[in-house]
């Protein structure tokens, strides 16, 4: 007999026909009901996040498919060294598992998500993405040419986007920024990759159901959850095992909201580390204006090339660890105008059209994704006043950018401008710390073998609650300098496998 699995999701199923790029005013829709900031969207399924004490705004989407509805689908793996930061650099902690443990799960996940890329990147152990890489387009070509001229590492990005028809998904037709959701279904969002398979296997999904707290038995083990159903009625669901995948903010929020006499500081929190060690990836945006037309609004916004030139520690740079670059294209006409205004490049009035014409279709650039080191003072806590639409306490994020991150961002800006100039940019521009860039939420229920210094063990099981598992970015020990989702998903598959393998003696 198989395992009976029920998933509770606070959001609804999404429909490709409703996505912004079906409409002429797609840019307005992408900034409104499809904005990546829940404090802007304010839909009933969203919960507010108090981000007043953070220079980086946390971003997410709440629906079946979660934040992958809006994500850019840039899909790097962690490198083997990313799991051993303490050993190599003397900072943070090593992970209790390594790249080799996750490798088979990375590979399964690449097949499930449908990854386009080019095998043989010297920055990585050899792996073969199932599809050929996406075309770089004019923007990717020009950024790559800058890296090439300087003799830097670069490689076409692994992208969770179909470059050909793939398992029921149609090939990418370059609609524009993937972060407004993919009307074509070429981008791998988990509602169209994993969910159809899971449902065929009998997994049940209840949408519009917001978990309020995890309940516990007298012995402190998880007993199930209390949740608000679609009509706002509080329901109880018993379970033998509870698995959390609410992301690096939603998961600590739920654990902290699950206080009981057995767990007075919140569930699984005897270490006091639930909600601590929050890591984002501080991002810098570096852009170049080119004379030649680049048509940058066309094509997946963030999936051209990456560079690991400054990925590993080099003491001469004055900071520990490093960052990757991810090539970026331009934006839609309205976004370009808004960005031009914010950057002080497009004035109102006289001179508006001339300035705008220099930008429109003439921008290429990159973001620098810097490795954020864990610090206990960067936290997710419960806000004393703010609640969601069901009255459940909402999270507050408190985050300070470290000196190490500041130095890394400054380095990334200078080197990035150098690359764009080498590529022929007539002008370069940078934002050294992007505020709306909290796409990656990590570290708030970290993994480890020392129960005093971690929340879950090396296969995602809470030290304090043996039938509670966490499978999202909360369990990251360090953040690496690349996007996290490939690793989040590989970890989730690995933990599911361990649960299955150990089902006979899971609670010993």
């Amino acid at each position, binding site marked *: 007999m198989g395992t009976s699995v029920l998933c509770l999701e606070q959001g609804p199923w999404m429909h490709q026909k409703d996505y912004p*790029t079906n409409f002429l005013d797609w840019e307005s829709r992408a900034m409104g009901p499809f904005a990546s900031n829940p404090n802007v969207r304010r839909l009933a399924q969203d919960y507010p996040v108090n981000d007043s004490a953070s220079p980086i705004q946390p971003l997410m989407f709440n629906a079946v498919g979660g934040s992958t509805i809006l994500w850019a689908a840039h899909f790097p793996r962690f490198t083997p060294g990313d799991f051993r930061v303490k050993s190599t650099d003397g900072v943070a902690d090593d992970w209790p598992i390594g790249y080799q443990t996750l490798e088979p799960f990375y590979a399964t996940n690449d097949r499930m998500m449908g990854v386009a890329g080019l095998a043989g990147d010297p920055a990585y152990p050899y792996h073969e993405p199932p599809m050929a890489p996406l075309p*770089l387009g004019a923007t990717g070509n020009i950024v790559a*040419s800058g890296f090439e001229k300087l003799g830097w590492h670069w490689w076409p990005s692994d992208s969770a986007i179909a470059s050909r028809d793939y398992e029921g998904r149609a090939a990418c037709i370059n609609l524009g920024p993937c972060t407004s959701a993919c009307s074509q279904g070429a981008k791998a969002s988990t509602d169209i990759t994993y969910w159809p398979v899971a449902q065929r296997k009998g997994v049940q999904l209840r949408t519009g159901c917001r978990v309020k707290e995890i309940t516990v038995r007298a012995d402190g083990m998880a007993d199930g959850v209390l949740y608000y159903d679609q009509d706002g009625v509080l329901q109880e669901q018993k379970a033998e095992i509870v698995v959390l995948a609410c992301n690096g903010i939603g998961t600590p929020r739920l654990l902290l909201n699950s206080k009981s006499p057995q767990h007075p500081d919140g569930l699984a929190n005897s270490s006091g580390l639930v909600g601590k060690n929050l890591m984002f990836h501080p991002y810098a945006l570096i852009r170049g204006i080119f004379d030649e037309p680049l048509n940058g609004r066309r094509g997946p916004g963030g999936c051209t090339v990456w560079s690991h030139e400054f990925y590993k520690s080099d003491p001469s740079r004055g900071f520990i660890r490093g960052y990757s670059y991810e090539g970026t294209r331009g934006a839609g006409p309205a976004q370009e105008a808004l960005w031009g205004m914010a950057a002080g490049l497009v004035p109102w*009035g006289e001179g508006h059209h001339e300035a705008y014409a220099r930008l429109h279709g003439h921008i290429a650039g990159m973001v620098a994704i810097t490795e954020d080191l864990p610090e206990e003072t960067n936290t997710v806590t419960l806000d004393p006043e703010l609640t969601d639409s069901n009255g459940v306490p909402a999270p507050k994020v408190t985050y300070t950018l470290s000196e190490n991150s500041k130095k890394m961002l400054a380095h990334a800006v200078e080197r990035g401008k150098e690359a764009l100039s080498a590529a022929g940019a007539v002008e370069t521009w940078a934002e050294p710390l992007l505020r709306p860039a909290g796409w990656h939420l990590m570290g708030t229920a970290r993994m480890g073998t020392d129960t005093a210094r971690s929340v879950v063990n090396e296969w995602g099981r809470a030290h304090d609650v043996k039938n509670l598992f966490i499978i999202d970015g909360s369990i990251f020990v360090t953040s690496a300098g690349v996007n996290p989702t490939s690793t989040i998903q590989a970890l989730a598959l690995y933990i599911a496998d361990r649960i299955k393998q150990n089902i006979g003696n899971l609670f010993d």
Partner: protein
Amino acid sequence: MPNATDPLHDNAFMEAFLNLVIPPDEDRRMPGAGSLGLGAAVAAAVETDSLLGHAVVTGLRAVRDAAVARDPAGLPGLTREARLEVLEGVLAHHPAFMTGVARHLYPAYYQHPRVLEALGEPARAPFPEGFQIEPTDAALMAKLLARRK
């Protein structure tokens, strides 16, 4: 008749004002934002903007009052130079005003079919036709493949 309380819905005023923010270009290829009739769209967006909406309405009111103080016909009755003087004067005391205006005007303007056509962009939703993009540069690719692990 100018509406005494609500500059957002004073059509003549809004047309003159928006034409100051995005004027037509010299060869008239790019239309002025006011002449495109974007006042209603901007008004609707401003009215639901809890962050900057108030600053926009306050700024607009200040522009209209300052213009009426110069000429009873208000902003539409002034020369282009005089309109600009009025606006510059108001901006000195209302720093968030123009950010709020642009936040709502730029999307309305740059998604308008006439503007898209003038920019050489197809005036259609991206889906379902999509777009072509340039292939990967073969010379770059050849260099890369030589470094393949």
